[in-house]
């Protein structure tokens, strides 16, 4: 039930997004503000680089012992009184959670922000089972009111302006129009507070699962995650298998880098530790805690020595904000729960070849790797996926005509370039042929397959010359040309 994008979706969707200048402005300003904060907090914290290395090492170690850690996590969670369910795929996860809701006769669910529940399409399943589902993270609440998925894994409503939100609240919540974030937030607080107090099911994801203590850690700023795991009588956490870390002492290394990169804070406002149902006589916490541990394609990534690195991701979202492609097309164009650079890697693994174009939609500029708190080599993984796609005929994904031409063109060029003399001669011929059509050395329009170049910029006519025009005609070795 994960939204699987249609075949050539990304091309169409990204074209529309690029034409939307207002979207572009909103993405740029929000992303820049985020990156400024990140720069600041990082600069103020000298141990940042060594914490990155430590966190990376712990992830490497944890993922390399994932089987043992999950056995320990399950044991500890169960000792703490949790029910633990391992779901091989999205459908199993959904069915289990719907089953819990039915068994307990649950009616009203409140959710903290969780990309994993987006990934498994949980909301629709619960609504179809007759539950009322309220997203309670402000950004998620906004996109839910609009009937859209989040466009960013940290800032779900990054594609909307305060005026957009004002108009939305005026329409859907029948409040007088205002574009003041303070007033809009106050209205959401009022509505969601009563949702929290009336809910019988709370759902969140988790940022970390500590095997040693059987504890889930949920990191957030608003307090809605805390409410979701504190107030309703039944609580469900949906956790990817890669979230497990060995020890409590490991956690600080992740917390020291997560918020600094995700939001530019030193720590988020709330770091919630959940380890089981409320104990006898306690006011806080659910009566039942269900932990759904999701594979959903992750074990396949684990089996691939290059793709395994994607499981180190701590979902900070910084690679989205720094990505020149994401910043132009926004999250929805990707047609996947996980947009941006890290999304282009995990989406084809989680959602199959429908997301096959995404790994190609990158200039391999490397900005994502530089900002990644656990130093995931995203460009290398994109290349790795491209090899698999391009070299395996059975996986061939359909390309729009222009792109298909470019792809076959590059192979033809490579064959030609094996013969440098022929290649140079063809360059001279092409230059001579094109020169009459050029204006001061540039062509404004070209036929396919070069029309995609001239669609946005002029094309310089080739000007190969074997000898230099300068006084020093031959190079000093005399051997050349």
């Amino acid at each position, binding site marked *: 039930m994960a939204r699987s994008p249609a075949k050539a979706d990304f091309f169409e969707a*990204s*074209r529309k997004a*690029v*034409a939307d200048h207002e979207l572009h402005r909103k993405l740029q300003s929000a992303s820049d503000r985020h990156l400024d904060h990140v720069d600041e907090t990082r600069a103020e914290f000298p141990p940042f680089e060594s914490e990155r290395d430590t966190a990376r090492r712990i992830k490497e170690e944890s993922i390399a012992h994932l089987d043992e850690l999950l056995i320990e996590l399950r044991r500890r969670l169960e000792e703490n009184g949790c029910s633990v369910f391992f779901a091989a795929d999205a459908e199993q996860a959904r069915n289990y959670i719907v089953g819990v809701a039915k068994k307990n006769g649950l009616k009203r669910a409140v959710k903290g922000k969780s990309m994993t529940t987006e990934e498994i399409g949980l909301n629709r399943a619960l609504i179809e089972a007759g539950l009322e589902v309220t997203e309670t993270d402000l950004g998620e609440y906004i996109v839910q009111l609009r009937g859209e998925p989040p466009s960013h894994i940290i800032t779900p409503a990054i594609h909307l302006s305060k005026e957009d939100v004002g108009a939305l609240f005026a329409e859907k919540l029948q409040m007088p129009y205002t574009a003041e974030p303070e007033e809009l937030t106050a209205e959401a607080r009022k509505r969601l507070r009563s949702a929290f107090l009336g809910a019988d099911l709370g759902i969140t994801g988790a940022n970390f699962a500590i095997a040693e203590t059987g504890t889930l850690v949920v990191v957030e700023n608003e307090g809605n995650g805390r409410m979701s795991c504190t107030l309703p009588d039944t609580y469900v956490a949906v956790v990817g298998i890669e979230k497990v870390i060995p020890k409590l002492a490991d956690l600080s290394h992740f917390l020291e880098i997560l918020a600094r990169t995700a939001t530019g804070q030193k720590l988020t406002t709330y770091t919630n530790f959940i380890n089981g149902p409320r104990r006898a006589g306690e006011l806080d916490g659910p009566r039942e805690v269900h932990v759904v541990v999701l594979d959903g394609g992750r074990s396949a990534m684990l089996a691939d020595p290059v793709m395994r690195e994607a499981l180190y991701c701590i979902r900070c979202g910084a690679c989205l904000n720094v990505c*020149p*492609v994401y910043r*132009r*097309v926004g999250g929805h164009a990707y047609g996947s729960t996980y947009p941006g650079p890290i999304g282009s890697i995990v989406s084809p693994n989680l959602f199959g070849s429908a997301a096959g174009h995404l790994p*190609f*939609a*990158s*200039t*391999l*500029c*490397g*900005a994502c*790797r530089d900002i990644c708190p656990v130093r995931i080599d995203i460009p290398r993984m994109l*290349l790795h996926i*491209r*090899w698999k*796609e*391009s*070299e395996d005929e059975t996986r061939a994904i359909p390309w729009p005509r*222009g*792109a298909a031409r*470019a*792809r076959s063109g*590059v*192979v033809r*060029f*490579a*064959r030609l*370039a*094996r013969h*440098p003399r022929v*290649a*140079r001669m063809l*360059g001279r011929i092409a230059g001579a042929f094109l020169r009459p059509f050029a204006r001061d050395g*540039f062509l*404004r329009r070209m036929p396919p*397959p070069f029309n*995609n*170049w001239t*669609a*946005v*910029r*002029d094309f*310089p006519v*080739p*000007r*190969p*010359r074997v000898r230099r025009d*300068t006084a*020093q005609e031959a*190079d*000093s*070795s005399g*051997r*050349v*040309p």
Partner: protein
Amino acid sequence: MDEVALFPTCLAEEFFPEARDAVLVVLERLRLRVRVVRRAFCCGQPAFNEGFRAPARDLARRLVKSCEPGMPLVVPSGSCTSMIKVFYPELFADDPEMLARVQALRPWVFEFSQFLVDVLKVKYVGARFERTVAYHPSCHLLRELKIREQPRTLLSAVNGIRLVELGDRDECCGFGGLFSVKFPHISGAMLGDKLARIRASGANTVVANDCGCLMQIRGGLHRAGDAIETRHIAEVLAAR
């Protein structure tokens, strides 16, 4: 060391002959004998990046066999240099014989500005260039090879130059090889923002170390009818 090899790269050969010439001029002024690699034309990166490793291997094999470890190989492109230094080992991971040759060659491969500053220890090359210059760091140069300061060191020593900053967090210009023609709308949007930054910087010349970026930016400026010029860094260093 008095002899070096130069791999001009296909883009420079076809579209930026003055960049190739300028590299020769600068190296010769530094009293080096330059042997231009003519038996290879392209490093193979376009096919490699698109996922076609077999044709890329053919080209890579050709280039590696045209060069000898022991003689520095100067490449006036961050992208092609990183192809050789960073990606060739991956390309030949399953071919021990070629891998050994690549590993032997790697330490001898240098991007042009890196070669001047880090190997020759040169900062000042006697150049004079009286223009206002915005330097655009190409992505592979910056993030694969980590060459950040070398070009700036060389440029700031040029007489008469005025350097200005683009202030866009060294963002990609949108070229990305085949990306530019497969996703022209996204590439164009990135280019548009880069041009806006260039104009806002007050520069009348954009300098980069990669002909790919120069082709993208030059094509965009020409389309817009803009008088701002583009130069390979070697052209600036060769200017008197």
